[in-house]
């Protein structure tokens, strides 16, 4: 359903994503982890066709995303996608339920489930960071898309809502790409495939369930499952032995700092 081949995304002369390859089958779920600034969000934007693709392609349901029109089966949780006009959340739910051809109750029920009814009369700029993130999560989840794209869906979100969101994602039947820098949260999705993104390059696949056996070490190791080339050196991903164990880390920024 999703095919990314040799994808290059550049802003000016700077390449943010380099030769990305990724394929996703119906119902497949993928977590992509990487430190801040590694290109995770840009990857989501490229899949949506809103990042400047300078090489390769992204195909969704066999159509190049550059030429895609009125494809209702894809949703994402980037807040900027929903700033169509200056309106309160209630009106945005109503408008996007029309545009996505979804019963508006799906939006309001999710809002109620997350105990967020108090945001309905507010505008996006009046919401806290966590509320904006949850609003965007609701906008992405409500249409029950075939391909759900989630960029840091847990960022700034309180514990109760995190638990509720985890439950929804655990029971979600369709395909998901979730990007995050939080390793801890990924342990809730052991069956998902796992990729690392570092300096615009994608490494994988692994399994989330294998994550606690993985180590990151500086340099090229003999038993390396994969080597990662970055501007601060070469790292090896190894299994069961190595310098920094992913199982003790809470986020990927910490892993990189420790090993570097």
């Amino acid at each position: 359903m999703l095919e990314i081949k040799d994808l290059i995304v550049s802003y000016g002369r700077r390449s943010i994503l380099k030769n990305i390859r990724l394929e996703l089958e119906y119902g497949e779920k993928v977590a992509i982890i990487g430190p801040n600034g590694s290109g995770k969000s840009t990857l989501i934007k490229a899949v949506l066709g809103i990042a400047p693709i300078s090489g390769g392609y992204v195909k969704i349901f066999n159509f190049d995303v550059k030429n895609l029109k009125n494809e209702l089966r894809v949703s994402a949780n980037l807040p900027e996608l929903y700033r169509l006009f200056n309106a309160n959340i209630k009106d945005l739910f109503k408008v996007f339920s029309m545009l996505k051809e979804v019963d508006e109750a799906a939006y309001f029920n999710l809002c109620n489930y997350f105990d967020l009814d108090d945001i309905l009369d507010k505008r996006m700029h009046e919401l806290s960071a966590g509320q904006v993130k949850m609003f965007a999560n609701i906008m992405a989840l409500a249409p029950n898309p075939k391909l759900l794209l989630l960029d840091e869906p847990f960022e700034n979100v309180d514990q109760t809502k995190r638990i509720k969101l985890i439950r929804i994602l655990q029971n979600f039947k369709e395909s998901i790409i979730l990007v995050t820098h939080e390793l801890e949260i990924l342990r809730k999705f052991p069956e998902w495939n796992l990729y690392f993104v570092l300096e615009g390059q994608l490494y994988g696949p692994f399994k989330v369930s294998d994550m606690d056996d993985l180590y990151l070490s500086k340099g090229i190791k003999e038993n390396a499952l994969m080597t990662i080339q970055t501007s601060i050196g070469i790292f090896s991903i190894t299994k069961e032995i190595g310098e920094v164990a992913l199982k003790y880390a809470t986020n990927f920024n910490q892993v990189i700092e420790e090993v570097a």
Partner: protein
Amino acid sequence: MLFSYFTKSLLRIKALWGWGVLFMVFYLVLGALVFGNELPKNLPVYAYVSYTSSWYALINLYTLSSLAISISNSIMFATYSLSYCFRFTRLKPMSYLLNFVLSSIIVGLTMSSAIMISTYGLFSYQFNMNLAPANLLFIAGTLVLSSIFMFAFSTLLVLLLINYLGLRNQSFISFIPLLLGFGFGFGQLYLSLPTLLLYASPFTAAIGLLYHGYSGLSVPVTLAIGLDNGSLDVNYLIISLASWAAILLLIDSYFLSRIKPRMIEEMRQI
């Protein structure tokens, strides 16, 4: 029914009412009570009708241009959303434009009503005679066409900015409709512009039609009293304004379908 949400948002913009109505009423006060004092008291009635209609036509066009600028500027805040919506919702560029056109017509008619009532009250008071608009239906029709044209023109400028020039040039582009409105407006008021230009320019066509609707008189080549340079054919003015509106909407739709997502931070000057 996106237009109802757009309309609701537009009607709540205080700056729009400030610049588009109150500031324009201030100009009407100047036209009626200050400059109107300089008119001789013994002119034929049609001269006062013509004077009043000229002010109404010019000021109403500026009101519509403030509205159009407000609407089209809002597109700059929605570049990511539009790019997403055209790909992943059932929204189509032309339907987005038509919804905005409908709300700009509704809001344009509302604001123009305030301008028309103010014109009627102020100028009738100053000249001590009934200076009511001659043909309300014709005025309404002209306002619809003018609203569509002003919206389509401002939107085209904004889309060129978004897709090619960059948002940093926003403050310059925003003033173009207003500057052209002033340029053509005062040109038509005091100069004898070539007839072909008066027909071809949508600004002078709109001013001429509003003048005709308010006064019921034929549209003079020069609006200022005492300069008789012949008159313009109203039908040609209607065709000109309608053609501009339709063609610009089609061009807008083309550029909108290729809208580039832009960070709003690009607009920052300092």
